[in-house]
């Protein structure tokens, strides 16, 4: 910046001014645009940056009465407490394991569905199928919880069918080992169709002359998929996977709490960091320890995103987020 001012000897060139006057000039020149952003800047300050100050709770012996600032400092005691807490390893493991399952199954189903959608040449059928497959994404998890209780609840359709045909009650709501499978099936139901949008857009954007050339050479449609479409889709897949791995440490609270709720019989496989932290609010105890969990989650998440972004940059420089 300074270099340019030195170089611009002509006094007419006012655009290159730096320092406070330069800043003021730029703000004034585009005052309408900067003013426009102001409400959102304030909103972000209040609802995103102020809570960051709240992470001080992590280093305090928090008492609700004294507030954040008034509470006593306690150093790293909350982290010590967290890592000595029985079952905390299981909660971290559940978060990562469930997210991994979601990423793998979601990606596979989305790609397979997208490949099929582009192969369906009948326009009406194509449109109908896509519309139906995407729709579940717009349904809330409370609605999912409702129909789930109708399928695997005490008098649910599947529960009754199993107990009538196999003579034993599967007791879905008290048997934690079913739940990774149940959650994965529901995640596919809810997200796989929506996930196809990006892939369908990518595939239809590919150079069509390659497909025509392949057709001339007598390639079957299956061959064009395995030899052309999938290899070309590789970067998109890698990018999206990298981005979701960046979020692997964030549990899907909306989903898991809506489906599992306070059913402690299912915690063994379904309790994730976010549900664990939420219970601190309900019971208003150990706020410090739970905030420490959040902070730990945020920091690991931040590291993951930065690391995966660096990885993305290597794979495809264009696609890195920053």
């Amino acid at each position, binding site marked *: 910046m300074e270099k340019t001012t030195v170089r611009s000897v002509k006094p007419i060139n006012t655009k290159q001014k730096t320092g406070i006057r330069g800043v003021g000039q730029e703000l004034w020149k585009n005052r309408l645009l900067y003013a426009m952003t102001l*409400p959102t800047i304030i909103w972000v300050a209040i609802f995103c940056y102020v*809570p960051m100050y709240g992470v001080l*709770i992590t280093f305090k012996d928090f008492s609700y009465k004294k507030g954040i600032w008034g509470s006593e400092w306690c150093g790293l005691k909350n982290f010590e407490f967290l890592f000595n807490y029985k079952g905390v390893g299981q909660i971290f493991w559940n978060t990562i394991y469930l997210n991994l399952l979601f990423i793998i199954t979601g990606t596979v189903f989305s790609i397979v569905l997208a490949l099929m959608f582009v*192969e369906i040449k009948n326009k009406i059928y194509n449109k109908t199928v896509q519309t*139906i*497959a*995407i729709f579940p994404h717009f349904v809330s998890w409370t*609605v999912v919880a409702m129909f789930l209780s109708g399928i695997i609840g005490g008098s649910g359709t599947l529960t009754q069918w199993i107990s009538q045909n196999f003579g034993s009650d599967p007791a879905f709501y008290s048997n934690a080992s079913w739940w990774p499978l149940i959650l994965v099936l529901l995640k596919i139901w809810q997200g796989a169709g929506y996930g196809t949008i990006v892939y369908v857009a990518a595939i239809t*954007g590919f150079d069509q002359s390659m497909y025509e050339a392949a057709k001339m050479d007598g390639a079957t449609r299956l061959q064009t998929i395995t030899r052309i479409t999938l290899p070309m889709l590789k970067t998109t897949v890698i990018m999206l996977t990298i981005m979701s791995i960046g979020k692997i440490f964030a549990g899907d609270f909306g989903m898991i709490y809506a489906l599992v709720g306070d059913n402690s019989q299912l915690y063994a496989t379904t309790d994730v960091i976010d549900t664990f932290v939420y219970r601190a609010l309900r019971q208003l105890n150990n706020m410090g320890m739970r905030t420490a969990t959040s902070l730990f*989650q945020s920091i690991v998440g931040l590291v993951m995103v930065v690391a995966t972004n660096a990885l993305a940059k290597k794979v495809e420089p264009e696609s890195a987020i920053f």
Partner: protein
Amino acid sequence: MSNTTGGTKIKKTTGEVIFDIVVYAFAALFCIYCLYPFAIILGSSFETETNFANYGFPIIPRDFTTQAYKMVLGDSQIFKAYGVTIFTTVVGTLISMALTITMAYPLSLKKLKYRNVITFYVYFTMLFGGGLVPSYLLITRTLGMKDSIWVLIIPVAFGAWNMFLMRNFFAGIPVELSESAYMDGANDLQILIKIILPVSVPGIATISLFYALGYWNQWFNAMLYLDSADLFPLQYLLMRMLRNVEAMREMARTTGVAMGSIPTNSLRMATTVVAIGPVVFLYPFAQKYFTSGLTVGAIKG
């Protein structure tokens, strides 16, 4: 071109036919998988209560009854919840779009020198957050928003991800469109309203749909911050109906039906139908826009 495609159509080999059948069938199967839960919800909402214990939740009710819907329509609490949900969805989406567009448009302009600073300011919040407990303390203690309808709107009014989608959409609009207006002496606000917004309908429709669905499907903030039943949105009411007996008892009181004779299961499903209904009707219209709106954002992002 038309010659080659016409040619392949005639010469479809057995392999091609099998391929087609597999693709069409698999797509159909997945659609059945997607629709089955809705069929269960709809069918069960018309089922007579005594059948659930013996036959489960049906797609086609054994003994058809509209009793549950009569209760839903006669329940003042569900009506109130509907009102709350519609209010938060409409007002919330308007506020959200205002915040999003006024941020996204300036950030899409290359001439704005400090746009990178502001972009990072917003982007950082996607990477790092204070977490649930500090936000809870902020909203309840500092802002005193507990038990106010605005707690369903203000704390969730802005989504950074949506803003970046919108920004990418604006960035795709050719600069030439606004340049001629600058020549004519229009300012940035006039250009945004008169030139940019009219050509951004797909993008605006997409992002509005995302926000609107977010508000419509919201229950978590209601659970955290609301105590008075008058302010409960529809989704939270559903949640309570599923989880606790207390909610059912409340329903018995507000509808004047004895607790024992409440058709619990069909009533739950009927309320669910009422809650998804508007989404089902609006979705096909919005879908036309959002596939194009979303992919523009996604490819550039």
